[in-house]
């Protein structure tokens, strides 16, 4: 059984249970509060999932690690390389004024020298 089939099976079982309670297809005579609780459930679960996703994204944005020193080091190295190549006669395209700084992909606190994981965002 593939994962897709598993998820579809689980989702359809839950969907059937929800339909049975909401539309009272088995005449179970549940107390009215429980019926009131069950019918918005699909929308409620979707909203909760959306809130969880938003909170996760926000938290990871707030705790992302900037390698300030590694960024400066990289800018210096770029400048050095450009000057070196200019001397050898290579024409350089103009660099953008606001070059994005490298950021550290891990959230661990590492020293800039050993921070080998930075990427340019």
């Amino acid at each position, binding site marked *: 059984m593939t994962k897709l089939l598993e998820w579809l099976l689980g989702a359809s079982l839950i969907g059937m249970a929800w339909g049975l309670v909401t539309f009272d297809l088995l005449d179970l005579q549940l107390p009215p*509060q*429980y019926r*009131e*609780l069950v019918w*918005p459930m699909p*929308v*409620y679960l*979707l*909203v*909760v999932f959306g*809130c*969880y996703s*938003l*909170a996760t*994204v*926000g*938290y*990871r*944005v*707030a*705790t*992302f*690690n*900037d390698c300030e020193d590694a960024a400066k080091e990289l800018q210096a190295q770029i400048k050095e390389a450009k000057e070196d190549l200019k001397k050898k006669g290579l024409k350089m395209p103009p660099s953008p004024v606001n070059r994005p700084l490298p950021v550290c992909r891990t959230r661990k606190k590492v020293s800039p020298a050993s921070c080998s994981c930075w990427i340019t965002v």
Partner: protein
Amino acid sequence: MATGADQAVGFGLVGFSLLLFTYYTIWVIVLPFVDSDHVIHSYFLPREYSVILPGVAALILLLCVGTFIGVITWKNRKPKKVD
């Protein structure tokens, strides 16, 4: 740690989603078990809106995403090359 604006935006998102989650949970799960003459009911709309409002919000989100894609696609259209 990310600084300044990044932290503000990040924690702002976390706070907003916590508020939204709490309000919506009370609206959908807690209120049916509270007596209908309790004062807390005055802070919440009728129950139908707990399904209608997220539905409308989802539609607006889809509209914004579709419009954005359409605008970008329109901007990036290139004239056909004539050989």
